[in-house]
């Protein structure tokens, strides 16, 4: 243990602790800007670049960055000495001197770390005038870039490269013109970006924001010729409450359904329902491949999950040689859209073109996924708009709806009833666990001795397990962060030496609960943990916890699809993948 004083207060902390963490343990909150850590989730951005957390360490010639300086025995730290305060304020003024002064119109207003810092430090004017950075605005279907606002904290770059290994962003140029950008400062859409949106989730300011579709949805609702139905993803219900001042991990499923109804959606359905459907399709596909393999037939194993659109984009761009490995099952959003427009619309007596399907997602990649060509019929998309958890909260607030004041209501049927297996889709390992619950029972014909697969849960980046499938050892792996997925893909490319059968991949930290469309967690990994706890709490509280036991699922197969992986479901619920990699094409 190391003894030191921080602001004259004696502190004892383990060796290797930074001044920043030691101070926080002592209840002293040193402000930071570039520093960002997701504890236990393999994400750390500690360039020591912003110089906001500078503190005075007695005996040192220069100020020290608290985020990156380890404590030493006998250290005397002053976090708010006149010298440290002057430096912190000056540094902040410098950042603001190269930042547009448009807080009122900024998407990030109220949730901006720079704005909060300026307020906290009492910045009333900016003494430095001079050149400001100007870049062309850029947008994909998911991410909006206004790099005039970039403070060069490099969080997005770290996220894009270290966490996702997508390699779309890099620090470019040097000195004052430094900025984080795709190659040649081209458009993000022309880069290797997979629209996971994690850059947006970690951006401290309004440089990277989401593409806002609230008005599209409000317009559709206001249009009397349209029937607007909505689906809500599993992870939304455990995070939406945060936007209304609730504790992280509060489950607001019923209030959310009520809120959506108040907003004027004609039907309030649940993506959880189509998650159960996904399990039926994907589980069946897995068993099919396993059976063939056992029969000695040539078949692609391991099978990868395909629910996560960032992951899909990632392997299409990086592993075009392995496009046969992922499950062909559409994501739950995609399946819901297909069911809504092919099955539900006629049932409701609505023409396909007059039905508008809106999804509420914890995700930015879903905004891009819904534009995939295979997910539309004659140019009419199965899902018309995807809103994030944050957008839903904004929309509710705009419409004067306070989630706290709402009663608990149920989803509409038949696309509203779901099982515990569906809700755990929201956390890393959840799809795997849900699939195991169903595949085991379908395969063995026996009831599971235990429903909870602890080996797929938790925040470990790559989890591996062997599941006893009634004598057959099923080798599985679960990964989040696409850098982890890349490792597994490379193993597969090299002949799958570990003999995996089934691998689940989610792009975001902890799965969809840490998605880019969720309320900003600002690096407080505890928030993500509490969302995960809530997910499993919701699962445990469900009367039915296996997808194949969902009566509405059973019913739709009976009534409409016939059987999982049958002809109609192949047409509507499955998709195919494209080689979207960079090509080296020489001209003569």
């Amino acid at each position, binding site marked *: 243990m190391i003894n030191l004083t921080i602001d004259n207060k004696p502190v004892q902390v383990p060796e290797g602790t930074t001044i920043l963490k030691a101070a926080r343990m002592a209840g002293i909150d040193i402000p930071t800007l570039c520093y960002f850590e997701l504890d236990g989730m393999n994400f750390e951005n500690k360039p020591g670049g912003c110089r906001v957390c500078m503190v005075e360490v007695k005996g040192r010639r220069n100020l020290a960055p608290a985020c990156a300086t380890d404590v030493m025995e006998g250290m005397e730290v002053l976090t708010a000495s006149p010298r440290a305060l002057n430096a912190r304020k000056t540094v902040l003024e410098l950042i603001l001197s190269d930042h547009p002064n448009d807080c009122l119109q900024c998407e990030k207003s109220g949730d901006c770390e720079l704005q909060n810092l300026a307020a906290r430090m009492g910045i009333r004017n900016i003494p430095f005038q001079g050149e400001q950075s100007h870049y062309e605005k850029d947008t994909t279907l998911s991410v909006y870039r206004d790099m005039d606002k970039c403070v060069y904290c490099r969080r997005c770059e770290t996220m894009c*490269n270290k966490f996702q290994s*997508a*390699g*779309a*962003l*890099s*620090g*470019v*140029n*040097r000195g004052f013109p430094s900025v984080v*950008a*795709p*190659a*040649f400062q*081209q458009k993000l859409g*022309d*880069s*290797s970006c997979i629209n996971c949106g994690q850059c947006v989730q970690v951006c401290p300011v309004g440089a990277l924001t989401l593409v806002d579709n609230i008005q599209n949805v409000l317009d559709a609702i206001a249009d009397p010729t349209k029937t607007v139905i909505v689906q809500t993803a599993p992870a939304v219900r455990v995070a939406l409450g945060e936007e209304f001042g609730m504790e992280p991990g509060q489950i607001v499923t019923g209030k959310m359904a009520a809120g959506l109804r108040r907003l004027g959606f004609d039907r309030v359905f649940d993506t959880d329902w189509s998650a159960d459907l996904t399990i039926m399709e994907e589980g069946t596909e897995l068993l099919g491949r396993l059976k063939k393999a056992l029969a000695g037939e040539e078949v692609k194993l391991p099978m990868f999950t395909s629910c996560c659109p960032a992951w899909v984009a990632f392997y299409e*761009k990086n592993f075009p040689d392995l496009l046969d490995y992922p499950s062909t099952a559409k994501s739950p959003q995609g399946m819901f859209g297909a069911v809504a427009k092919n099955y539900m619309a006629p049932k409701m007596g609505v023409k396909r073109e007059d039905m508008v399907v809106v999804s509420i997602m914890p995700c930015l990649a879903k905004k891009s996924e819904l534009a995939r060509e295979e997910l539309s019929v004659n140019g009419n998309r199965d899902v018309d708009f995807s809103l994030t958890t944050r957008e839903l909260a904004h929309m509710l607030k705009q419409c004067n709806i306070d989630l706290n004041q709402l009663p608990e209501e149920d989803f509409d049927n038949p696309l509203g009833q779901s099982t515990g297996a569906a809700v755990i889709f929201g956390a890393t390992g959840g799809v795997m666990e849900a699939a195991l619950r169903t595949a085991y029972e379908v395969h063995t014909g026996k009831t599971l001795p235990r429903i909870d697969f602890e080996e797929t849960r938790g925040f470990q980046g790559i989890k591996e397990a062997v599941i006893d499938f009634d004598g057959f050892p099923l080798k599985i792996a679960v990964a989040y962060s696409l850098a982890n997925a890349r490792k597994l893909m490379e193993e597969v490319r090299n002949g799958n030496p570990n003999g995996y059968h089934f691998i689940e991949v989610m792009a975001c930290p902890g799965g969809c609960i840490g998605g880019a469309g969720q309320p900003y967690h600002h690096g407080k990994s505890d928030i993500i943990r509490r969302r995960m706890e809530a997910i499993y709490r919701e699962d445990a509280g469900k009367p039915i916890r296996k997808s194949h036991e969902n009566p509405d699922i059973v019913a739709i197969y009976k009534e409409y699809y016939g059987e999982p992986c049958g002809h109609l479901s192949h047409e509507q619920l499955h998709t195919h993948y494209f080689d*979207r*990699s*960079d*090509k*080296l*094409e*020489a*001209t*003569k």
Partner: protein
Amino acid sequence: MANIKLSEDKVNVIKDICKSFGNNSGEVINVLHQVQGKFGYLPAAVQEVIAHELNMPVAKVYGIVSFYSFFTMEPKGEHPIDICLGTACYVRGAEKVLDAFARALNVEVGKCTADGKFSLNTLRCVGACGLAPVAMIGEKVYGRLTPDMVPGILAEYK
């Protein structure tokens, strides 16, 4: 993502250079040096090929190219003119020499003349401080320059 359009010969030159460094991404700076040595500059398509061969994101390659002043994405003029603005040259009037070149060629610093004949750039110290102020045209060093020498020097290349 962009598809790379570059002649096969050029692609092969780049591939060979990458291969000579074991296609190791840690050698990217050496690769860029050699490729620029061959082509004179590093246009986007060339960087795409290098990224592909070294199995690294092209954004990272561009991040490196845009960081180091030695690397350029702009083609140089037939006779690249570099004016040294190192301290020794600066205090001996290099700026006036630079102005004289810019005026005589009617070209901005960092740009190429319309006919592609000259490009005008500045650099920091060629290490010939004893001859300050110094300019380089191609490989040739001109020392102890004064603005009135500029037209005469340019005449050598016309």
